[in-house]
């Protein structure tokens, strides 16, 4: 099987997965008991008049195919399940998740407004975790069996398995409340929202913004780096026992060149895919970390949506998170297919 067939197969697989997620979403949000209740939480908002509430509920039902119009008496006609699913499917494909109960804005608009903060946090911490994890992993593999090695493995196993929200809380306890080095949470100082308080120009804001970024980024870095360290260590140890490494050493190459040019380059293949495959894991960590630090991103927003029983936001966010993970997997497959000449497509 050639590369082209392989890619076609992976694409088909991805499309099937997306349809599966939509079905899952449909089953959870439309067929489970409680959906109607979730829609009717709008009705519990005292600010909206009773008639307007009925209209809002009707609009929601129409959007997601629960209702198929009104009959002569003005009563709602329920849709058959298949029509329901069809409408739902189209709504999902077109990212038409409805309006957030909380803000009244379309869910997609709210998502894009929160995306920057999340990307900033995830990007910083992933980059740090990858660099630190690989670097320490190489050292650990080089000094395998030593105290340094076992200390590193133990530490990374610990940070890897501790609940991420607890790590965040402890970091706040130590660095924010005890040492007063960093703020306890938020994205920027609270008084910046007042006009005239925020320094003009992005450049002047950077030092203060970095202080706010530090603790959440550290939490997510600690949460991730252990996985990379262990993986690097394992693949490096395997590579270091290969003949060409012995050859490289015999040639009298400096150890640094042997480690990073010869060994790491070949050991990095599983790492490339691991970074892509971490997506799901990372998003789960982000939801919790953003909640711990009140970091105004997608995860914190999802947390607020839970408290508000904000159905449209929940299903929109779940769909988008699942899409991210699916595409990350797809990306990992493609990268693997492209960069590893040894791979046999099956």
């Amino acid at each position, binding site marked *: 099987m050639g590369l082209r067939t392989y890619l076609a197969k992976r694409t088909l697989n991805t499309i099937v997965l997306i349809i599966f997620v939509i079905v899952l979403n449909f089953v959870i949000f439309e067929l489970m008991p409680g959906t109607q209740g979730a829609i009717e939480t709008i009705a519990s908002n005292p600010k909206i008049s009773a008639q307007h509430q009925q209209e809002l509920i009707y609009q929601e039902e129409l959007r997601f195919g629960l209702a198929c119009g009104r009959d002569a008496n003005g009563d709602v006609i329920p849709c058959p399940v298949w029509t329901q699913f069809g409408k739902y499917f189209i709504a999902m494909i077109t990212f038409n998740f409805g309006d957030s109960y909380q803000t009244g804005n379309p869910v997609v608009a709210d998502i894009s407004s929160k995306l920057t903060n999340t990307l900033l946090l995830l990007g910083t911490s992933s980059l740090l975790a990858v660099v630190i994890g690989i670097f320490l992993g190489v050292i650990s593999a080089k000094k395998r069996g030593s105290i340094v090695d076992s200390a590193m493995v133990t530490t990374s196993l610990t940070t890897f398995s501790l609940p991420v929200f*607890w790590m965040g809380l*402890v970091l706040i306890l130590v660095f924010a409340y005890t040492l007063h080095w960093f703020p306890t949470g938020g994205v920027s100082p609270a008084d910046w929202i007042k006009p005239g308080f925020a320094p003009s120009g992005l450049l002047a804001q950077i030092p203060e913004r970095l202080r706010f970024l530090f603790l959440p980024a550290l939490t997510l870095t600690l949460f991730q780096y252990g996985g990379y360290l262990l993986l690097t260590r394992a693949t490096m140890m395997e590579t270091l026992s290969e003949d060409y490494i012995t050859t490289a050493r015999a040639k009298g190459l400096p150890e640094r060149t042997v480690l990073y040019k010869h060994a790491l380059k070949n050991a990095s293949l599983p790492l490339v895919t691991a970074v892509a495959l971490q997506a799901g894991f990372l998003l789960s960590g982000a939801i919790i970390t953003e*909640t711990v630090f009140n970091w105004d991103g997608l995860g914190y927003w999802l947390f607020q949506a839970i408290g508000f*029983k904000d159905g449209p936001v*929940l299903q929109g966010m779940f769909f988008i998170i699942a899409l991210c993970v699916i595409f990350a997997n797809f990306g990992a497959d493609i990268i693997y297919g492209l960069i590893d000449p040894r791979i046999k497509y099956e």
Partner: protein
Amino acid sequence: MADWRFNLKRLGSFIRTVTSSKMALAGIMILVVYGALAIGAPLWSPYDPQKDVVAGSLAPPGWYSYFSEGSRLTKNLQLDPTTGFSSDPFAQGWKFSGDQGLSSSFSPSVTLTPGSGSVQFSLTQSSMGSSSGIFEKTFDWAFESPPNRLAGSIAINTPDASPTHPVSAQVFIERISDHRIFPLTNNASWANPPISPYPFVNASWHVPITQIDSRTSCVAQVNTCNSLQTVLNTNVDPAALILSSSGQYVYGVKITLTGTGNSTQRVFLDNMNLRLYGTSWGLLGTDYTGFDVWSQLIYGARISLVVGLLSAVIGVVMGLVVGLIAGYLGRIVDEVLMRFTDMLLVIPTLPLLIVLVAVIGNSLGTSRLPILILVIGFLGWMGFARVVRAQVLTLKERPFVEAAKAAGAGNGHITIRHIVPNIVGLIYVNLALAVPGAILSEAALSFLGLGDVTVMSWGRMLNLVQTYSAQKAWWWVLPPGISIALVSLAFVMIGFSLDALFNPKLRSRR
């Protein structure tokens, strides 16, 4: 008969082998400790984790007062051990001094709290005009710092009051060092017997005439009810204002009666008590509300262990069934089941758990625990199903399966009698390794506020820390996280040593 003896012997040697591994032994010891704490929770702490306010808000542990940072911490002080007067108060330090004709006595028959008595004040028949008396008790505040919270109570019954002959009362604290008197209530006056009779023993009461509390503005009860700050006309913490230094204090009530000249006037007093909530408490201090953190930890162990174990069992059983069916039946069944498994494996678990619990949890009653267990269990079978399937695929080609087939055994028989016994080791290992994941899932969901609010779990403790932004209360933050980590570690250690036990190859390699 010999059969069970043989099994027992086998079990014995199995346990011996398991415990011979140091790692497994350490894991088992951790679990025994937490298991004992969880099962015997009411024995280790008499306090309810979500009902009993045991001390002031966010009080550090009692032992912290031995450190220099905690040297100014105070302890709880309760004037009388019981709320009502269970025995003669005059034998327990209460004193009465009153005008001519006003006398006091212990009245065991009239009471607000069943099983105790009250104090009766009587003004003799012949008295005219108003007479007053003071009923008080002296106590020692042994700490330089004030308590976190001051809470007093008193109940009064005025059977003989009338508009022309009212009864009034005022509760106060006197600081002996400078003889300053702090009124805790406004001077309340009753011109009638209690209007709405309460179904209490022997009498009806103005109940409660007041709940004195430095923390809350008063629950609207009677006209006399005011917040302590209003009564004292201050905007500082009343507890800090009154109990500003160590020394002797007097808690008392001044009662004023008006004599008719021709009949005895009576007043009954009950539930007179004072509670000073200290700024340190017990083994692990208190949370934001003043609940006992130690109780929360050990009752939380119950929830975490139950959720972890049950979810793991559900997940492993589901994985076993799916893996057996897929592996044994093969062909299209295998293809469909494994495709489905793979798809579920791709979807991120935590977001899926969140939406499932958020949506299903809405529609059901208050207790979400069963839903949590089911949902976590239902999402924990995929990995194990793949492992079982792979094993079954190799096992079903083995000669003993073919021999069984040739002997005419059916699919069910072969699966149960020949294949399952060969993967028992796998089942145990995966069971042990599935528990930490389930515990962490429950903790994460509870932390996000999706847990069961009727019970305390480790995740919910941390959720409350987050809700009240109380991260600086280390005695509240550290124990649940350390417990989650320790219990998870214990299961992982047991799982690894079981793995080594069932895979001799692995054992020699390590």
